[in-house]
């Protein structure tokens, strides 16, 4: 069952930017694309654990600030030829409010 939690206003996340949501299982990065879609990923690059929330967002991807791994926001997959995957969490926008559903197992790992 999806358990949606309200985490804030869409306008509080910059376009082509990201904000962090703190959880006991680690930070989750919530991204906003140019067209106001939102995506949520564990804030850890599969490469060396870099904080993806601090990266440059382009189209539906983010570049990790540590070593330029590029991660797909929708799937958490590293863009080929790089390999690796970051856990994703369901996120949505309704009436300008961002909702997140934390997948516990993923966040805790």
């Amino acid at each position, binding site marked *: 069952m999806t358990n949606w*939690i309200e*985490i*804030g206003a869409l306008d*509080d*996340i*910059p*376009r*082509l*930017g990201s*904000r*962090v*949501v*703190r*959880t*006991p*299982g680690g*930070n989750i990065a*919530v991204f906003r694309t*140019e067209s106001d879609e939102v995506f949520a990923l564990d804030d850890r690059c599969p490469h*060396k*654990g*870099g*904080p993806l929330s*601090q*990266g*440059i*967002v*382009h*189209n539906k991807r983010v*570049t990790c*600030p*540590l*070593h*330029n791994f*590029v991660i797909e926001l929708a799937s958490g997959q590293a863009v080929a*030829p790089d390999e690796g995957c970051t856990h994703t969490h369901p996120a949505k926008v309704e009436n300008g409010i*961002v909702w997140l559903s*934390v997948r*516990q197992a993923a966040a805790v790992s």
Partner: protein
Amino acid sequence: MLDKVTKRKLVVIGNGMAGIRTVEALLERAPDLYDITVFGSEPYGNYNRILLSPVLAGEKTVDDIMLNTVDWYEDNNITLRKGETISMIDRRTCEVVTDAGDRVPYDRLLIATGSNPIMLPLPGKELPGVIGFRDIYDVDRMIKASTDYRNAVVIGGGLLGLEAANGLMKRGMNVTVVHLLDTLMERQLDPVAGGLLRKSLEERGMVFKMPAQTQAILGEDRVTGVRFGDGTELPADLVVMAVGIRPNFELAKKAGLYCERGIVVSDTMQTYDGRIYAVGECVQHRRQTYGLVAPLFDQAKVCANHLAMKGFATYDGSVTSTKLKVTGIDLFSAGDFAPGPDKEEIVLQDANRGVYKRIILKDKKIVGAVLYGDTIDGPWYFQHLRDGTDVSHMRERLVFGAANLGDGGVSGQNSVAAMSDETEICGCNGVCKGAIVKAISDKKLFTLDDVRAHTKASSSCGSCTGLVEQVLAFTLGGDYSAAPKVKPLCKCTDHSHDDVRRVIVEQQLKTIPAVMRFMEWKTLNGCHSCRPALNYYLLATWPGEYRDDQQSRFINERVHANIQKDGTYSVVPRMWGGVTTPSELRAIADVAEKFNIPTVKVTGGQRIDLLGVKKEDLPAVWADLNDAGMVSGHAYAKGLRTVKTCVGSEWCRFGTQDSTGLGVKLEKFMWGSWTPAKVKLGVSGCPRNCAEATCKDVGVVCVDSGYEIHFAGAAGLHIKGTEFLTKVETEDETLEVIVALTQLYREEGWYLERMYKWCDRVGLEQIRKRVVDDVANRKALFARFAHSQQFAQTDPWAERASRGVDRNEFAPLAELELA
């Protein structure tokens, strides 16, 4: 997106490297524009023709050299009609006709029919056992002959002939090479190198008959021998004709397209019929035909760009290099090495080591190079040749190669061929030679970008780029596609840095989306490479007008601190000229204790670094430092970093001028300015140079009679002493020259290009002329810098610590306590 019905039809004749490389490049640029059909008369996918020699020699298999398998065509919705030959182009109806009479319409046609081996018109040339050396079919026949027969004659002592001879010899045949002239590979080698080559091939058992003219091929049902002009005969069960290739343009000629020695094409790779393009060995461009692979890549890129209706790229011809692919023989040649009255030669000959090097110079530039025995520096000479570098300053050591030029940086080590597979090439990402070689052969990589993407080698600091290019050249044999001299800004565009900067000014573009729209960016929002570059270019071009785009800044510049490996940040307050006070030090100590900052470290630029600060603490840390009168040290910026000074005449018994005071003055004037890459200054009070000014981006060495201004030094990836710019008499003049120099760099430098690289590219004299000699220009540059500083000199820490700028950046969006 266009649907299948309205899509334009592109027909490609020729399923070889040139045609398919063009299709690949087209798919990158405009994946949905065309419905593509490829005709190839060979029953294979696309394979790497350069590597046929290693297949013949038994060092590679046919599978090893496949570039595009049949699946690739399917995955990309390309109709591959292999084994079908086009017999006619009907330009009136825009159709091609297959040999079976099938008519296929086209909107655009690409001819990439390559070349055919030249078969000498000798009596007996149609006998079984007489073959050319061109495709897999020929190689198969040669391999079969080597199991059934003993004696082979190869006619032609050029690159292809020798590779064929070597392959057949490795397969156990007795091989005689017949050559018309007395020098082997005379188009690539001079007589001395040709002689060395002959000697070492003879040592391996190859027999030469040269100079010799073949008169007839003998035999009844099958070749049995060869007769020469002097009447002598040689027994032969196999005759390979490898005297050259001829562009294959029959089809084009029959269709009425203008041909000379090849299909004549324009700089956009179009034939005289604008609907019809041609690339590869079948074309003649600016009177040149090419039989090597590297030019094909350049042509393919231009052709694809035009087919994609971008229409700005042009092909200007290629300079080529060759490397003989005979294992154990190192031979490299490039450019023009025929002797001439206006040419000079540098020759190194060491018979015992079997080393021969000949560098040909004209007008202070390398125009040709022949290397035998030691070819490690081949790509290095070739780079200088293509770039037209003025080599007069290194002339005396030129022949000894790159390693002997005193480039003390990482790029100094230089013998890829001699390295073991475990040798680390890329120190940043820990990639060793073996991994790169494996990726190149397994993944079929051709370019530096390919290698970067697949192995990460050379993708961080870039100092190993030269080595990686050497590994490419070494693995592929001279035919790898060298990085073009004019590089695109990033993969999102085909435009260069210079193009982008020029268009921003010409078209008055003032936002990143406007630049991307106007210059037809290939991606929606660019990427982590181009966005920061565009942001800088706009900021530097339109000071006060352009609104800095925080989301296009690398994190360090967005949060005004340096991200560390664990996601914490480091904070460096400014200490003007490296001078501090007891109260500043006390404040720093207090901050470190108050925020539990784990490491306090003195930096190389005479500053104090507080490491391990949590992001959410940054504004509070800055507030405390601000209260003590300190501002951001911009240790994170592509901008003015530090001015390092010595104590100068104020204290030092040797000091000639007030170097500390001058350093502080420079720093106070220049802080806050954004530049293409970081800028570090040094000011030394006397020639003892305690501030190490002569390895900085800009350095001042004070002398009794004034101030020597140096620039373009480096002491990081590369070690490079500065160049002397000029000497002035007063502090004010010093400031004016340095500011003007920095402004010129701000206006011309490519993003991330350090000042020494900019100077290398633009040339010291060019810079001196505009900054020193032309006083009016110097003052104008100074005025532009000063204008831009009005908008740049706001402390970013104070804005964020006490004025609430960018507050969201430092706080989490939410804190969840999950059950």
